[in-house]
């Protein structure tokens, strides 16, 4: 087994960076909710890390990257990752890195995708129901969709490829997960926002972000981790990784400016929440495109994403659904902008494994494939999530009690407060057997 130390080191480091995105997302979301639900918002992400990582070991990697021959889903592999210890990943060709590092890297994508959905149903979701949802959703939505998009099949010695996902086989270009991660999460977020309904007081009570510095810390961690997400997806320390990294930076920067520009013109002020949101919109949009377009095109894609997403977030008030933290406006819309942009700006001059888009003499063929990817993933995710959401709602229940929601979900679901600022009476006293233990120790 021949390993390239440089490639291996980069993929291992990128894996850790992508893991950090989920806590980053937790802070990004956590700062945006009211102070009475900050812990629950953080917990929805951390809980997801726990559930998905365990499922990945049991059957997730097999369902996403195994070969059932259908192109629709992988296959169950009951070795529980044990067989990967001494093998190389073969994903449309062999990579000189341990297959376990490939599997760990892909696990982090499986972790963050359901976590992204949590922003759509902030402040009101039963933790247990969320756990059940995440476990089933990754199994019947994420793992299959990741197989469609990310599994390029096994390349054999004679050059033939078998077992590729059906979208990957058709030439849909999604480098790091514009469809499988962002459109998938965005469409699911829309479905769940509809299933759970609006928060108590939505559109009447101000639901302002309680901690904008936390939002910006989260955005910063996401931005940093995203270099692992995008540039790590090259699975090697090479020119493609450098292109992806540079495009990630400039598209994000341009999107930040694009969002602020719209705010300045429309609302009169450039806001810190707008800067953070614009950066995330840019990161989302460049994700599918980062290894297929030139940096100047990345700037254009970023500007478009920032401006379009900043206008898209107002849709929920017009259409009357409470996508609390704008998963739809940022991830679904940003993902669509990014996926379609490859159909315009894709260029084989920057990546021979890519394809030429409309602006590079490739005609509309690539754009058509990209649109297919968008519609297939958004449609499948929305419909299955809607069915799963209603199934959970009418069996174990999806929402907490209205009175608990008003008092704050942190207390009712976790029995904790996010912040303890007051100096008087905040300490309380032991209410349990610990009190007796403390007395006995005197």
């Amino acid at each position: 087994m021949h390993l390239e130390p440089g490639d291996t080191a980069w993929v291992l480091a990128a894996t850790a960076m992508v893991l950090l995105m989920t806590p980053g997302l937790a802070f990004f979301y956590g700062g945006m909710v009211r102070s009475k639900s900050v812990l629950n918002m953080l917990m929805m992400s951390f809980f997801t890390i726990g559930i998905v990582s365990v499922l990945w070991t049991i059957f997730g990697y097999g369902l996403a990257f195994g070969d059932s021959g259908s192109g629709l889903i992988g296959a169950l592999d009951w070795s529980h990752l044990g067989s990967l210890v001494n093998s190389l990943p073969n994903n449309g060709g062999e990579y000189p890195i341990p297959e376990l590092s490939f599997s760990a890297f892909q696990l982090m994508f499986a972790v963050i995708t359901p976590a992204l959905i949590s922003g759509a149903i902030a402040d009101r979701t039963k933790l247990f129901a969320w756990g059940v949802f995440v476990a089933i959703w990754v199994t019947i939505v994420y793992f299959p969709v990741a197989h469609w998009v990310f599994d390029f099949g096994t390349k054999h010695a004679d050059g033939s490829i078998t077992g590729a996902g059906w979208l990957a086989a058709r030439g849909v270009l999604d480098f790091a997960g514009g469809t499988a991660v962002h459109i998938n999460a965005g469409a699911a977020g829309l479905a769940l926002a509809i299933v759970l309904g609006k928060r108590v007081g939505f559109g009447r009570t101000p639901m302002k972000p309680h901690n904008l510095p936390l939002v910006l810390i989260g955005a910063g961690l996401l931005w940093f981790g995203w270099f692992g997400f995008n540039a790590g997806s090259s699975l090697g320390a090479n020119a493609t990784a450098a292109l992806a990294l540079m495009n990630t930076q400039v598209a994000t920067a341009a999107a930040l400016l694009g969002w602020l520009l719209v705010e300045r013109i429309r609302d009169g002020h450039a806001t810190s929440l707008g800067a953070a949101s614009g950066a995330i919109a840019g990161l989302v949009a460049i994700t599918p495109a980062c290894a297929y377009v030139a940096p100047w095109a990345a700037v254009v894609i970023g500007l478009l994403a920032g401006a379009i997403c900043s206008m898209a977030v107002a849709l929920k008030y017009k259409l009357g659904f409470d996508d609390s933290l704008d998963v739809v406006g940022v991830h679904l819309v940003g993902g669509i902008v990014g996926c379609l942009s490859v159909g315009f700006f894709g260029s084989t001059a920057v990546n021979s494994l890519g394809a030429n888009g409309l602006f590079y003499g490739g005609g509309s063929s690539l754009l058509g494939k990209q649109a297919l990817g968008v519609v297939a993933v958004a449609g499948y995710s929305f419909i299955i999530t809607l069915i799963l959401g209603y199934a959970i709602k009418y069996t174990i229940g999806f929402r907490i009690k209205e009175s608990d929601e008003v008092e704050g979900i942190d207390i009712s679901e976790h029995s904790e407060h996010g912040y303890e600022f007051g100096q008087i009476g905040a300490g309380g006293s032991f209410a349990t057997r610990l009190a007796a233990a403390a007395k006995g120790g005197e």
Partner: protein
Amino acid sequence: MKLVTAIIKPFRLDDVRDALTAIGVPGITVSEASGYGRQRGHTEVYRGAEYTIDLVPKVRIEILVDDADEESVIDAIVKAAHTNAIGDGKVWSVPVSQVVRVRTGERGSDAL
């Protein structure tokens, strides 16, 4: 004895304190308050959603004074807190029937 209470704009606090020190007021109590009068609140915008914030931050000053000092203390506060803009605040005083210094047990004017 009188209790003089003032609600002022937070950024005027330093000037008011200097003015009170200048006329020999030995101590004051300050707390953060929020509210609105004729000025009403301000607007904040989050991701394009505009909120009207009715309650704006204010500072509340409380001073116990001798009857004789009442007018000079009120005048000093009003002069120092004045910006001639809407939302400058209010000052009022009420009679106080008893004051006790906790440490010594002194009562009445001796406790001021």
